[in-house]
């Protein structure tokens, strides 16, 4: 196993390479306000991050990653365009697997640039591929933006689309919603009686709690409206199904997705972006003919990514987490930017895992 100084030395070396590529070094604090992270990730983050507190600042978290503080820093004081690099520890609470580290070093590279997003995607991916050159790794790529476009273009109500978008990163709940909206799953027992009632709130139970009667009425109204909404068509449903199952090398994936676009024409602009990305990757010398693309990649683990996503995995070591991951997170800059936004893409590498794989190879 690599020791700490070996890991630090490797991290420093990689950061220097990112600097040489034009990045400015940043060093965000270890403690981050818990509230921002909770707003972003929801309660699940408590299972993954260490929480501490003091009377003055309230709840703080040991940084579970660098992305949030780097985005916040850029949005409040950064010049445009900007490229940043950093290296340091992140902390992840482990409750189930004692073999997973709860503290490890990440080296990252982030690009905030309004021009040529396809070029920025390719820049980040090819820099990462260069840092990892020679290791027995398999690269996986995907694009959350295609699924997003498919959902946003469905011929159904805005309310349904918003509900699906909210659960894009929770495949199980996404499927339940989709089945209900396609008319394949009935509502709970007694739902029709409730919706048919003239005054559904006229029960003998007292109104308690902070959720007011008007909010309950509003939801009943929404449920009534939804009952009258025609189901999502079989065509669209089949299109989504096919889309989510696309798993091919990049050029073939694009070809299959162009077929899906016959039923779901709304994904065409996203596919054009994918095509431009393939060209940019090729221009930077990436062998796209052998590069894997999975339309569903990144849906379960990479919550804030909303476009291009990628990961590098150790061949023959399925027990290891990915050696590097990254992607595009335009929406995150909007969420943390107080009204401002900027297209952004980046990723992180774990030097400890790189060294471990190198040791394996010797």
């Amino acid at each position, binding site marked *: 196993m690599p020791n700490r100084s070996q890991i630090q030395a490797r991290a420093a070396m990689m950061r220097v390479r990112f600097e040489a590529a034009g990045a400015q070094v940043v060093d965000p604090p270890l403690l981050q306000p818990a509230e921002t992270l909770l707003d972003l990730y929801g*309660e*699940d983050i408590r299972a993954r991050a260490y929480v501490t507190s003091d009377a003055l600042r309230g709840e703080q978290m040991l940084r579970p990653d660098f992305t949030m503080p780097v985005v916040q820093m850029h949005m409040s004081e950064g010049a445009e365009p900007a490229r940043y690099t950093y290296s340091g520890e992140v902390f992840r609470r482990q409750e189930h697997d004692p073999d997973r580290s709860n503290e490890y070093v990440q080296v990252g590279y982030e690009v905030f640039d309004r021009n040529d997003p396809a070029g920025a995607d390719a820049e980040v991916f090819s820099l990462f591929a260069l840092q990892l050159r020679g290791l027995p790794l398999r690269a996986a790529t995907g694009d959350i933006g295609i699924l997003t476009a498919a959902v946003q273009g469905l011929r159904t109500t805005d309310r349904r689309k918003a509900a699906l978008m*909210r659960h894009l990163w929770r495949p199980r709940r996404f499927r339940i919603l989709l089945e209900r909206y396609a008319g394949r799953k009935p509502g709970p027992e007694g739902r029709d009686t409730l919706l048919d009632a003239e005054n*559904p709130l006229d*029960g003998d139970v007292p109104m308690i709690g*902070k959720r007011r009667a008007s909010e309950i009425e509003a939801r009943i109204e929404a449920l009534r409206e939804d009952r009258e909404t025609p189901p999502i068509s079989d065509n669209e449903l089949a299109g989504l199904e096919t889309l989510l199952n696309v798993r091919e090398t990049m050029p073939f994936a694009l070809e299959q997705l162009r077929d899906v676009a016959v039923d779901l024409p709304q994904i065409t602009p996203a596919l054009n972006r994918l095509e431009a990305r393939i060209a940019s990757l090729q221009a930077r010398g990436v062998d796209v003919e052998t590069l894997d693309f999975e339309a569903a990649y990144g849906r379960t683990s990479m919550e804030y990514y909303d476009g291009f996503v990628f990961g590098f995995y150790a061949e023959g070591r399925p027990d290891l987490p990915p050696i590097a991951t990254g992607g595009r997170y335009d929406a995150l800059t909007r969420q943390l930017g107080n009204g401002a936004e900027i297209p952004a893409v980046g990723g992180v590498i774990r030097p400890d895992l790189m060294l471990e794989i190198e040791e394996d190879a010797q």
Partner: protein
Amino acid sequence: MSLKLGVPSKGRLMEKTFSWFEKRGITLSRSGSDREYAGKVEGIDGVSLILLSAGEIPRELAAGRIHLGVTGTDLVQEKLPRWEQQVEQVSKLGFGKADLIIATPACWVDVDTLDDLDAAAAAFRKAHGHRLRIATKYHRLVREFLTEAGVADYTLVDSQGATEGTVVNETAEAIADITSTGETLRANHLKILTDGLILQSQATLWRSRVASYNDDSKAVLSEVMDRLS
């Protein structure tokens, strides 16, 4: 070295545990006055009784400071990550039955399922500017259950007692707590979600997998096991 048996130190749980062992020829009792937390064991040699709060028994088992212990499934699963590797279930005792459930105000006529709770949480957050609060002391079990179900836009708030009252007091919108008859829930105008059952718990005898056993304590353990079967 004797075999250490941990039993809840108070109330009905203690009394029922005592009588469960009594039926199997092992007489447990408190030595001295009622205020003293020392115990006596008759009917079997080599067992010592340790009286503890039920909430501490999982931790003592996991630390190997007691070999056997009686406590609820809920407490073991909440307090011990990867509990199967630390303790082994010896016997369910058939009392102390309670369900860990999610309950909402009964006046939420539009909420029957987790699906509804999730939709209500999204709208609630928009209307009130904070996430829907669920009061509980079972943080890990509840969070894992809701994550698995894909419920979002909620936050857990800690409540170590009188959890049913948090809704009326508007310190939480819903609760996750244990209930046996549902009486307290009804009295507080709460109802259980139809798919809101997180765990069915009852008093259970556990064996520590990490405690050290020598030849003597192994022999005593196997005699205890014979009596219990």
